[in-house]
């Protein structure tokens, strides 16, 4: 496993599957009376949030606490002029206190990569977890989305996922495409031409996903998709001329009730997802959000389990599991080599 989790592309298929499998165990812990595991005892995790967040920050904090790490939240509004410099000072000051992990959310794309670079240059051993950087990436969101899908669908290889909405500004979409392709799912992304990121064409070609401007054609022309993921439209951006009126957006790209009904006729097990917070009546109708197909609350509930699993894999152990190495160590306890084989096999 990598030391930093900066991008969903940092994860190999095996890494991702190990995190998803671990999250299943963590999810069980979440239902217990005593929600505490000793695996991160004595570790310190700092949540450094320069952007507002409720669910991501609180779920990282709960995840750290349930794993017995000491978690501390720091929120800062990025200053305008000397933002870069102050960020560097901030993280170097915090890591000088011998912390083990920095969970960072920042408004600037690439901020987490930059921080990881600074730490590596300074020889600081802390891990950096990207909790959302600008319009770039949000890898733990992609992991919890994949987890929610695997809970319902099993292996994602060959499954079809349609992601719809404001692709230009969506870090959720970027991380999701990267991870879903790693896991072998077929991905189609749908947006009005004005919300298609520039330069997405070559990326789609390299990573093998499909682009579309027509939601109805994507949903109904071929076999029905397994998952439809709606992205949030940020109302504040509507003045930017990305689309004429909210109404027009809904007609073209919203998951309305008739659309969902037609979809469910073709595939009654279709999953409706949304990273939240939702604009009911804009990108998703209330009926779709509350329908039997919706797994939106499952996504929220998976958040803590996935973050526990991610912290565990980044902070615990000396590296990726390898056959042979584990056997020997394992034998110094009262295990047989066979059990070790099995636990690795489960990964």
């Amino acid at each position, binding site marked *: *496993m990598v030391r930093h989790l900066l991008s969903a592309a940092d994860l190999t298929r095996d890494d991702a599957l*190990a995190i998803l*499998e*671990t999250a*299943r*165990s963590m999810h*069980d812990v979440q239902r*217990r*009376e*005593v929600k*505490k*595991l*000793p*695996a991160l005892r004595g570790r310190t995790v700092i949540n450094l949030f320069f952007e507002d967040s409720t669910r991501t920050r609180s779920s990282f904090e709960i995840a750290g606490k349930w794993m017995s790490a000491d978690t501390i939240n720091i929120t800062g509004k990025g200053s305008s002029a000397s933002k870069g410099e102050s960020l560097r000072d901030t993280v170097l000051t915090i890591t000088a206190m011998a912390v083990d992990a920095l969970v960072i959310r920042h408004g600037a794309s690439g901020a987490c990569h930059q921080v990881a670079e600074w730490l590596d240059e300074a020889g600081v051993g802390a891990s950096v977890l990207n909790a959302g950087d600008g319009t770039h990436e949000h890898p733990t969101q992609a992991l919890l989305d994949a987890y929610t899908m695997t809970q319902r669908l099993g292996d994602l290889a060959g499954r079809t996922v349609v992601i719809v909405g404001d692709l230009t500004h969506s870090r959720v979409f970027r991380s999701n495409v990267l991870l879903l392709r790693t896991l072998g799912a077929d991905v189609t992304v749908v947006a009005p031409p004005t919300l298609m990121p520039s330069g997405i064409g070559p990326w789609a070609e390299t990573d093998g996903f499909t682009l579309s401007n027509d939601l109805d054609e994507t949903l109904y022309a071929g076999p029905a998709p397994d998952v439809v993921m709606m992205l949030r439209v940020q109302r504040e951006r509507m003045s930017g001329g990305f689309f004429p009126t909210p109404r027009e957006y809904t007609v073209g790209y919203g998951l309305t009730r008739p659309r969902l009904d037609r979809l469910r006729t073709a595939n009654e097990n279709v999953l409706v997802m949304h990273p939240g917070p939702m604009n009911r009546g804009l990108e998703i109708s209330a009926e779709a959000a509350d329908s039997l197909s919706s797994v939106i609350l499952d996504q929220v509930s998976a958040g803590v389990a996935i973050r526990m699993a991610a912290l*565990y*894999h980044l902070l*615990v*152990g*000396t*590296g*990726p*599991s*390898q*056959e*042979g*190495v*584990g*056997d*020997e*160590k*394992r*034998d*110094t*306890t*009262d*295990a*047989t*080599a*066979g*059990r070790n*084989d*099995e*636990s*690795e*096999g*489960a*990964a």
Partner: protein
Amino acid sequence: MPPTDRELHDREVPQGHPLDPAGRVVLGPEEIARALRRIAHEILESNKGAEDLILLGIPSRGVTLAHRLAELIADVEGTEVPVGSLDITLHRDDLRDNPTRTPMRTRIPATGVDDKVVVLVDDVLYSGRSVRAALDALADLGRPRAVRLAVLVDRGHRELPIRADHVGKNLPTAHTEKVQVRLQVHDGVEDTVRIAHGQTHVGGR
């Protein structure tokens, strides 16, 4: 995806490193069956019946053994004893010094463990550290009335003040030796316990 039996077997005997010729079978299918039958009787005897019993296997072969014991107990008493699994990965004391392991699932019977007599089941008892981890894991799940330990093989070399209540076979071993348990259900090969010399590759003690 779980490895196939063939893969497990291949991993156990890496190419170019055949099992030590001195490796010998110490328990065969009949001996193992007899040992388990005796353990089942012992459990019932010390508990004065099957009431409030729960069998928790430590993954992965401990779980297989726990199911075997439950069947044997059902044969004797006609009572279904709940069986579960207790993963200890996250409670191990050597997490830091080893490659990251993916935890396996813990499954506790619906009755819970409060006020029950929990019998932990494992294949091999060695340093006692796995059992220590299991006791910690169990403490987070509730407060059993009593916890007992049943193992197929006790190979000695304890590093903690822990002993088993029910032992299939005491096997005196050297640290350099390796105890290999294979179960039909689990490994697709005949039930066997074998002592071999330590693996010939990479370090180890």
